[in-house]
């Protein structure tokens, strides 16, 4: 049982306040959808939790099972059990997918996996996400299509088995087939019951495949409404206009 607890979080980018007091608790066994219009600060929340140097925490706390996340380095946060599936994973020239994944798995698990077992595990993970075998030898995200990048993020999610996963617009730019494959991966990850998912999205489309237990509406740097899955249906019908106007 794990809990990510975000309390009154304020975050600035270059002295401009983006997050204005976010409160959110994600526990294992739960899937949360964080929804909001573009520019509302959803991605800022994700990157601030992951520790991206561009974002400055001005006040508030983030803890994982009581441990202060904000005092940890980026890699320590990942090893503590946090995972951020990125919206725009960067291309890293000359670093192969297999080398990257082995390094990441070794770091997170604390020991290098046996080569044969890892090769098998990797193949099974790739098969489940309909990723071609040749993919492992390619350079990290280099020349990947949008769908390949997202599948690769979910492959990492499944290999690294974090306690809490934050998925930043993993559904954006995917066709329906890719969306289904990616959603199945998220559901496999969530099915173990001892993991929690925070799904950040602009659209309700992915919620047909990944069923949230809780829905939070994000606007102008804070959560403005919370509810169950029915809230997503309301957003589907009415859009965000009502919230953006209220904040204007």
């Amino acid at each position, binding site marked *: 049982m794990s809990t990510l607890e975000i309390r009154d979080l304020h975050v600035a980018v270059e002295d401009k306040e983006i997050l204005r007091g976010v409160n959110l608790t994600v526990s294992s066994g739960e899937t949360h959808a964080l929804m909001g219009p573009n520019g509302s600060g959803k991605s800022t929340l994700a990157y601030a939790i992951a520790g991206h140097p561009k974002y400055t925490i001005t006040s508030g706390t983030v803890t994982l099972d009581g441990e202060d996340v904000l005092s940890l380095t980026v890699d320590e946060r990942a090893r503590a059990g946090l995972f951020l599936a990125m919206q725009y994973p960067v291309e890293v020239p000359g*670093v192969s997918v297999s080398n990257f994944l082995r*390094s990441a798995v070794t770091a997170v698990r604390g020991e290098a996996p046996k080569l044969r077992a890892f090769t098998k595990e990797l193949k099974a993970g790739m098969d489940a996400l309909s990723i071609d075998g040749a993919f492992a030898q390619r350079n990290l995200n280099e020349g990947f299509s949008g769908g390949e990048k997202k599948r690769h993020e979910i492959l990492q999610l499944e290999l690294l088995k974090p306690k809490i996963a934050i998925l930043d617009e993993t559904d954006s730019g995917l066709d329906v087939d890719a969306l289904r494959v990616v959603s199945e991966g998220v559901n496999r990850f969530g099915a173990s019951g001892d993991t929690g998912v925070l799904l950040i999205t602009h659209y309700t489309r992915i919620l047909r495949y990944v069923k949230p237990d809780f829905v939070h509406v994000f606007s102008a740097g804070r959560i403005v409404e919370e509810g169950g899955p029915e809230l997503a249906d309301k957003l589907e019908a009415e859009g965000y206009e009502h919230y953006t106007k209220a904040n204007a």
Partner: protein
Amino acid sequence: MGLDTKPLSTLRGKSSYKLEDFPVPTGREEMWRFTPLSRLRGLHDGTATLSGNVVVHVEAAPEVSVETVGRDDARVGKAYTPTDRVSVQAFTSFEKATVITVPKEAVTSKATVINLRGEGNGAAYGHIVIVVEPLAEAVIVLDHQGSAVYADNVEFVVGDGATLKVVSLQDWARDAVHVSQHHAHLGRDATFKSFVVTMGGDLVRLSPSVSYTGRGGDADLSGLYFVDAGQHIEHRLLVDHTVPDCRSNVDYRGALQGDEAHAVWIGDVIIRVEATGTDTYELNRNLILTDGARADSVPNLEILTGEVAGAGHASASGRMDDEHIFYLQARGIPYDEARRLVIRGYFAQLIEKIEVEEIRDRVLAAVEAELAR
């Protein structure tokens, strides 16, 4: 670039076997302005004392012949005429030259390794001639180690339809000074692949140049360098396309770390009026790992004909991308390891091009050792 900027093609016109034809450089000349002359230990002004020794030992493939010849050998200076003061100083000062000949149509069964060991800090001069006769194929390794103040000229004569692959390792001791000219003279349909690796030395200035004599000549010049605090590492390339339908590709990449680490890369490519159908591309990248390191990168492409197949250049010097490091760290990989992965990746495509496995492993190990500093 000022009003007095002259075309490369005229700047590069001068060549001579006579020392007096080249005045002592002052440092203001275009071709010397990046080089700290005071650290050349007199190689450029005739004051270097000839007390050094660079021992040449060749481990040859069975198919090739190795000769040590005197200054009067007809093959010496046949493909190359010195183009600067240090080069002509070396040319007029060396005592014995090493001539390696790969006979016509011979395909060598293994790499021929020329070991050059510096044994002290007095000046020494050298000359090497590699002749690959028509349709022959060979791999040559020049392996420089030890302490030396050394100036030399290396001539690569690649015959019609022949292939020569050269790896030149400047793996000198930290105090070495090396100024070297590598000239490749390509026959019709000749292929020349050069891979330069410069890691050691206090000052290394290496000038690879290529000339063509027949259609279909193909030159591929790669380089990798790692510059540490206080080192001056300079590569000056010149590819002179004088013949139609030849190709050249230049890819030099370096990393710099530490105070006063200085890399210089000059990439001159001339496509003469008569060199129609030329296909050329040159690239230089510098990865600056710390404050206090400096890279000067100057690509010069001079096109005198309207009919080229392709011509381009690119130069980029900069810091490691923080987003790369963030991505790797976000997957649990500690900072130091993430940095190593990114730098290794930066060099990887280049190192893969080294066809001699032992050399590739050695270069990889050298990069690893630099990263561990």
